[in-house]
């Protein structure tokens, strides 16, 4: 009975959101320009929601609470990096937008292809984006699995939950394009706000009188849990927190779907105003931390990836099924809406910058078909990743960010007048990725407490700087 109530609410909310997404796209003809960048007519409010759609994902909803539960204060980095990313975007995004509008870019890799005049670099960037979106989609899929299992009160096993999640994500992606996703974000954010405030205020108030009371209890049982601690704690010390903040802030807008969101803005001013006000959205994370800290005291003992279930299990145990249903529905949308955007982005970059640019898919019908197939390929890869690697939600996001941040030097230099040759940018990206693979092979996520992605980014920049004059020289020799 409980399972039927909770799952029923989730199902109703998902269907209603798909309907809202379809309403948003009604009367809009769906050529690639419309499907991927919303016809470049997306105004301030909708753009705000679209960009914010990347903020309230399963990662914030479950992952941030899971880290507050499992690791404590290092989770604070999540509050810092988005804010830092908006500061960077204030300067970078309007320039990217201006170039994209003048040159008619559709996808993130289009920027590399055109600015560095290299089809190969465009394809390389597309493939890197594609691969790095897999763990990001895995994150959303894992979130769905957790929510469905908890809302099902044990009646659904993990594999069935993931399979349902896979099906719903693919369905949602096919019925709504970018415009549909943006409108679905409206419903998602409203519901997630309710869920987050409940988890972050009502839960701690119920058990400890207030969020401050919950933190007092945490400090009694785990002294030092609420401060980050010195650099001598390599796994999650202060060096790690600051390097991870910088890494993820640089990578924030490098995602193909984020680049497409920048292109889709109406004008440069819209982007600047968004950058000014988006940090307010981040504050909600504070309540997610409260939820994680409360769960740590109410239901201790969850370790590893299980910590991601923390406050949902508290809701399941101590609240009526309809409350659980509403919170789970919020979480489901927080997984579904971003996952659709990510699948669409991964599929469209490979379809456009590999298949179309290399003449494999020539006409628009072939491109649309390729995109659809690739959506399923990414979803299937994410499913496979879920099956072989059991990683926390934050862990999955960090894998994805390590890779995508390698595009940062190319985008920053790409908006300038004196750009390096494509070979140098490509060599830098390859060097960064090689360093990451080396770290992954040895299963260490850091060096001297510094996030491995930053080490890879340094290698990337060094190789780029060395290759710049060499590649220029080679070009001059060829010309002569």
């Amino acid at each position, binding site marked *: 009975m409980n399972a039927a109530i909770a799952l029923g609410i989730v199902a109703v909310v998902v269907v209603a959101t798909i309907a809202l997404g379809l309403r948003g796209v009604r009367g809009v003809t769906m050529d690639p320009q419309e499907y991927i960048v919303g016809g470049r007519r997306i105004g301030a409010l909708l753009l705000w929601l679209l960009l914010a759609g990347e903020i309230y994902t399963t990662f914030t909803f479950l992952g941030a609470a899971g880290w507050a539960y499992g690791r404590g204060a290092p989770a604070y980095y999540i509050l810092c990096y988005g804010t830092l990313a908006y500061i960077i975007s*204030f300067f970078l995004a309007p320039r990217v937008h201006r170039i994209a509008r003048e040159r008619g870019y559709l996808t993130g890799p289009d920027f590399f292809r055109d600015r560095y005049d290299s089809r190969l670099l465009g394809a390389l960037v597309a493939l890197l984006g594609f691969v790095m979106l897999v763990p990001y989609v895995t994150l959303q899929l894992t979130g769905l699995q957790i929510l469905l299992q908890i809302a099902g009160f044990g009646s659904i096993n993990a594999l069935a939950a993931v399979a349902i999640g896979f099906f719903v994500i693919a369905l949602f992606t096919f019925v709504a394009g970018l415009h549909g996703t943006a409108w679905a974000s409206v419903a998602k954010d409203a519901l997630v706000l309710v869920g987050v405030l409940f988890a972050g205020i009502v839960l701690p108030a119920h058990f400890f009188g207030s969020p401050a*009371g919950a*933190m007092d209890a945490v400090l009694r049982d785990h002294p030092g849990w609420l401060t980050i*601690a010195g650099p001598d704690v390599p796994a999650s010390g202060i060096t790690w927190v*600051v390097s991870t903040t910088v890494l993820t802030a640089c990578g924030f807008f490098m995602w193909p779907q984020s680049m497409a969101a920048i292109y889709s803005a109406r004008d440069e001013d819209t982007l600047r105003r968004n950058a*000014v006000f988006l940090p307010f959205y981040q504050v909600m994370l504070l309540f997610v931390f409260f939820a994680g800290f409360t769960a740590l005291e109410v239901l201790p003992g969850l370790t590893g990836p299980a910590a991601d279930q923390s406050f949902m299990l508290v809701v399941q145990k101590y609240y009526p099924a309809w409350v659980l249903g509403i919170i789970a529905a919020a979480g489901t949308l927080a997984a579904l809406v971003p996952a659709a955007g990510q699948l669409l982005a991964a599929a469209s970059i490979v379809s456009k910058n590999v298949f179309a640019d290399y003449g494999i898919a020539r006409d628009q019908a072939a491109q649309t078909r390729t995109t659809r197939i690739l959506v399923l390929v990414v979803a299937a890869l994410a499913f496979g990743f879920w099956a072989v690697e059991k990683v926390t939600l934050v862990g999955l996001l960090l894998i994805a960010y390590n890779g995508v941040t390698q595009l940062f030097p190319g985008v920053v230099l790409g908006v300038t007048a004196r750009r390096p040759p494509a070979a140098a940018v490509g060599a830098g990206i390859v060097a960064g990725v090689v360093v990451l693979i080396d770290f992954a092979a040895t299963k260490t996520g850091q060096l001297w407490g510094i996030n491995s992605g930053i080490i890879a980014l340094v290698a990337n920049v060094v190789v780029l700087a060395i290759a710049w004059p060499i590649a220029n020289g080679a070009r001059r020799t060829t010309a002569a």
Partner: protein
Amino acid sequence: MTSNRAVAVVCAVVPALALTLGVIVFDRLEPRILGLPFVLAWIVAWVLLTPAFMWVAYRSVRA
């Protein structure tokens, strides 16, 4: 760099440093503010202050 541009850069650098180096300096529990450990209160305060700084940056770039 024009003086307006310089104002914008300064307005961006201050919160950026507060949210990185500032976190290293102020990673402490006491004094707790509204029950928050000091480092968390520091971060939240700067997340809320960043739009104010960036608004000044925005006005100066547009001027």
